[in-house]
């Protein structure tokens, strides 16, 4: 790790300063800044194409920013590769559900325990007792997670064959299995009906407490966030830039937010 | 239609085998050739040739009344297949002897198996001199590259009188590479010229366009004083090179080696190969060939409507080597011994005959050196009025005078 990452800073768990990203001529993210306290649940909303998912890509290192800084737990993680970022404790879900094709749910969960590497290659090849013990433990832990999400009975089904709502849960369970401190949820309720949405919101609140997570929740449908009022604070993005930040109540009054959404609606 | 006729003949052949009656067990000989795959071009000519020869022998009463049965298997131009089929010929079909292959890798793949099972094997058209090193059961029918390189160098230097030549070297073929090496080596020796081949151009098997190489030759021909282009190539390449060379206005003479002697030379080469002199193994008008060989050529022509080239004749020779050896074994030990002897004994006896006798039924009388190389004459043919005709004859003694270093390896 390069030396400049070692300078520790105190304060928020995640701090983003002046992030810029353009693709070709298109400015996807413009001078984006954000600060997230430990244990906070922040909403990130904005109309389609506002650059929310790009922000996630920039945090996790999937895209490299043109300028700006991302600091996580006091460590500069700007432009680190996704696997490093994940290792440091940031997990994310995807808006378009990604299931490992033809893989059982339980195996997908075990894959997500990759980072734990409780045994080494020799243990595998010689089938040491340690390997057996640890594999069993992984399986139990995976089942625990699945039970928590109410899908333990589906452990041996193929992830890609599950209904949409359940796939969302597997996705979040899989992210949790990486034992993150910061969870980035990318439109977790999109494509779900109201009942499923309610259930999922419940789960999100539950895991936040249980695992002591900080969460950023991206949502383009304003009502999900506004109506439930689950977010501690909300950042509103439009055309790649932050236009305002505040609590639910504050934002409901804010003209700029309405304009952004209406403008998008008209376009 | 020709194809259909061919199939019918195979049926007739089956009938002729049936005529012999059941009292004499047929003498089984195996042939492995690449009838499909990259080297299919030559394998098919082997097969056609051997089918004619087998018919001929059986129509004359077989070998001492024993019908001859040749099992032809396809090596698919893959050495692993050659090894496998060699096992099958030896273990399942129980052949007395085998022959086949057209390249050192195929020949040795099969030869190693034959050697291990102590069964004699003759390579049809692989000419790399290291082939017989597989062991004492391995022989080769065609003139090895070192001998041919020497003979061609000698002929070009002494008879044709070209001082400077250029050569097309196929770096993907053992034949082209090795022959080029030997040719240059011996030409230096015979001509007392330190650089008799000032330009060697290379290409690779499957190339179609030789005009870049030819343009290069053309540009340097005058400066280097080139007089002839030597073409030690697979059958398909020499005529194409000739056509493209003439089209580019190159009027150097062409000299071919035994790889070019097929119908494709005239079919593809047309006017461009007119006057081309090339070394080969056979011509119907060479002196001292047996009647059976003339009959074979006649039958071959009648059946397939073209002359057997070097490849067909080599297959015929390889078969005849085995047939004559088996006949000599029966001559010597009697039919009673043949009927009662074990397979291993018959195989060893056949090998011993192959190693020591002089063959009379082959296209020319010849014998093997103790190492397994043939001592045979090189025939020169020329293309005249669109026909391949006899040009000259170099006996083994002619191109291997006393004191010349034969340089078998390296």
């Amino acid at each position: 790790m390069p030396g400049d990452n070692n300078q520790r800073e105190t304060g928020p768990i995640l701090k983003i300063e002046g992030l810029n990203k353009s693709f070709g001529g298109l400015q996807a993210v413009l001078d984006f800044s954000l600060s997230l306290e430990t244990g906070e649940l922040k909403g990130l909303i904005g109309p389609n194409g506002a650059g929310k998912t790009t922000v996630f890509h920039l945090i996790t290192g999937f895209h490299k920013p043109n300028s700006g800084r991302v600091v996580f737990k006091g460590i500069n993680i700007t432009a680190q590769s996704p696997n490093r970022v994940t290792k440091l404790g940031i997990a994310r879900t995807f808006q378009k559900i990604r299931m490992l094709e033809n893989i059982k749910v339980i195996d997908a969960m075990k894959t997500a325990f990759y980072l734990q590497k409780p045994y080494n290659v020799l243990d595998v090849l010689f089938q040491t007792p340690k390997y057996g013990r640890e594999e069993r433990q992984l399986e139990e832990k995976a089942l625990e997670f699945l039970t928590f999400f109410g899908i333990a009975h589906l452990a041996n089904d193929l992830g890609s064959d599950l209904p949409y709502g359940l796939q969302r849960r597997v996705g979040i369970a899989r992210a949790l299995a990486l034992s993150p401190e910061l969870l980035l949820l990318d439109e977790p309720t999109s494509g779900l009906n109201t009942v499923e949405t309610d259930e999922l919101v419940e789960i999100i609140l539950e895991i936040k407490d249980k695992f002591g997570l900080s969460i950023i929740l991206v949502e383009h449908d304003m009502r999900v966030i506004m109506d439930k009022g689950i977010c501690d604070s909300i950042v509103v993005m439009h055309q790649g830039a932050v236009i305002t930040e505040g609590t639910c109540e504050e934002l409901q009054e804010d003209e700029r937010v309405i304009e952004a959404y209406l403008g998008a609606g008209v376009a | 239609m020709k194809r259909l006729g061919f199939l019918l003949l195979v049926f007739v052949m089956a009938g002729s085998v049936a005529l012999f009656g059941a009292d004499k067990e047929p003498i089984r000989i195996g042939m492995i050739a690449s009838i499909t795959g990259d080297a299919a071009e030559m394998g098919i000519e082997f097969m056609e040739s051997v089918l004619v020869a087998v018919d001929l022998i059986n129509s004359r009463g077989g070998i001492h009344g024993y019908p001859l049965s040749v099992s032809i298997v396809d090596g698919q131009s893959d050495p692993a297949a050659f090894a496998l089929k060699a096992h099958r010929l030896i273990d399942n079909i129980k052949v007395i002897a085998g022959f086949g292959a057209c390249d050192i890798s195929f020949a040795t793949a099969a030869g190693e198996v034959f050697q291990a099972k102590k069964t004699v094997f003759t390579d049809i058209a692989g000419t790399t001199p290291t082939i017989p090193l597989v062991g004492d059961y391995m022989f080769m029918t065609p003139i090895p590259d070192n001998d041919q390189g020497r003979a061609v160098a000698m002929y070009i230097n002494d008879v044709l009188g070209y001082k400077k030549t250029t050569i097309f070297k196929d770096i993907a073929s053992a034949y082209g590479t090795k022959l080029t090496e030997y040719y240059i080596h011996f030409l230096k020796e015979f001509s007392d010229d330190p650089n008799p081949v000032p330009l060697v151009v290379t290409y690779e098997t499957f190339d179609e366009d030789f005009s870049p190489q030819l343009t290069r030759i053309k540009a340097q021909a005058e400066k280097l004083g080139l007089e002839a282009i030597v073409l030690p190539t697979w059958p398909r390449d020499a005529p194409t090179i000739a056509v493209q060379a003439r089209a580019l206005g190159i009027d150097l003479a062409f000299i071919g080696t035994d790889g070019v002697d097929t119908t494709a030379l005239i079919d593809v080469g047309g006017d461009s190969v007119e006057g081309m002199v090339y070394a080969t193994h056979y011509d119907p008008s060479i002196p001292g060939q047996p009647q059976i060989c003339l009959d074979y050529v006649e039958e071959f022509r009648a059946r397939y409507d073209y002359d057997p080239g070097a490849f067909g004749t080599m297959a015929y020779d390889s078969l005849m080597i085995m047939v004559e050896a088996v006949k000599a074994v029966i001559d010597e030990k009697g039919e009673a011994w043949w009927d009662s002897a074990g397979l291993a004994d018959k195989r060893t006896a056949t090998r011993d005959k192959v190693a020591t006798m002089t063959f009379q039924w082959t296209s020319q009388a010849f014998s093997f050196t103790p190492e397994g190389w043939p001592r045979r004459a090189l025939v020169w043919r020329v293309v005249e009025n669109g026909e391949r005709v006899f040009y000259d004859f170099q006996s083994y003694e002619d191109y291997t005078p006393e004191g010349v270093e034969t340089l078998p390896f390296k």
Partner: protein
Amino acid sequence: MRVREGFTAVARYPIGIGLVVLVLFLLDRSLPGFWLTLFLLFGINTILAVSLNITNGWANLFSIGHGGIMLAGGYAAALFTLPVFFKVDIIGLHLPGWILNVQIPFLPALLLGGVVGSIVGILLALPALRLRGIYFILVTLGFNLIMVSIAENLPNYTNGAMGLRQFPLYTNVWWVWGIAFLVIYIALRLRKSYIGRAFIAIGRDQELAEHMGINLLKYKIYAFGLSTFFTAIGGILWVHLILNLFPNAFSLALVFHVVTMIVIGGMGSVSGAVIGAAIITGFTEVLAPIEEGFQVFGVQVPHLFGLTTLLLAVVLILILILRPQGIMGEGEFSLQGLRKRLSRSKAE
């Protein structure tokens, strides 16, 4: 199942291994030359297919360049296993004395060739790993052709197109199947560990895998290194069975045979690779008598050389149409699974 559980894991292995050794011993003694060679080629193809499956099946690095790896490993080992007189007196290679004047036993030669194959494989992989899909295929295809070209053009070290012969016949049932079982074992074990799961995750969804904390480059190199190590060893075994090595020995056709094996067997399945190897190895050889012509009721059926190759092509297309996931899909063969399936079909 009750009885089985009586054995401890420690006791079960020796019995299984003992049985396998006994079977191999009997086969080695009783099989006639043809079938033995076929059995050995089946073993070599198993090694090639299972190791190719690691890159092509699991990690989705679809390589058709493994022929070049076999060539590199094959030549590296061959230069050391060839008899000294052949290298020095007969073909006269221009090599440093420490290569020219030694002949080493098979095991170190195998390891050496495997390591060289691995190194060459990783050198190929490093620039190629940035590419995806068709571009990766193209680069590996080119790699194959380049290796052939290099082997042809360095006659001082490789003897060029003339190739190398006179190898000692090292390859036998024990080497081939010992290594084949080792590869199968390693593959099956890895599959059930975080390493294998990382390979498969990369193969299925590279970006997701990266977001699971998997270091793509590292694991791709692992996959390539492991696969090419055993591929090179497979090549060396082939060389010391067929006793031949020349630039075109492991052409594209051979690579496609191996690819066909894993596709027929089911990409990603180790047992599928073994089944595919059995089918492809046996197919043309077992059916060969058909194309060679035979007699039925006194009527001679004529030669139809090429028929088996044609049939193989047809069968391959039919399998891909009727069962695109291959025979095993991505599953593995297991006695329990078979029993389950049997009892289910009985119940129906």
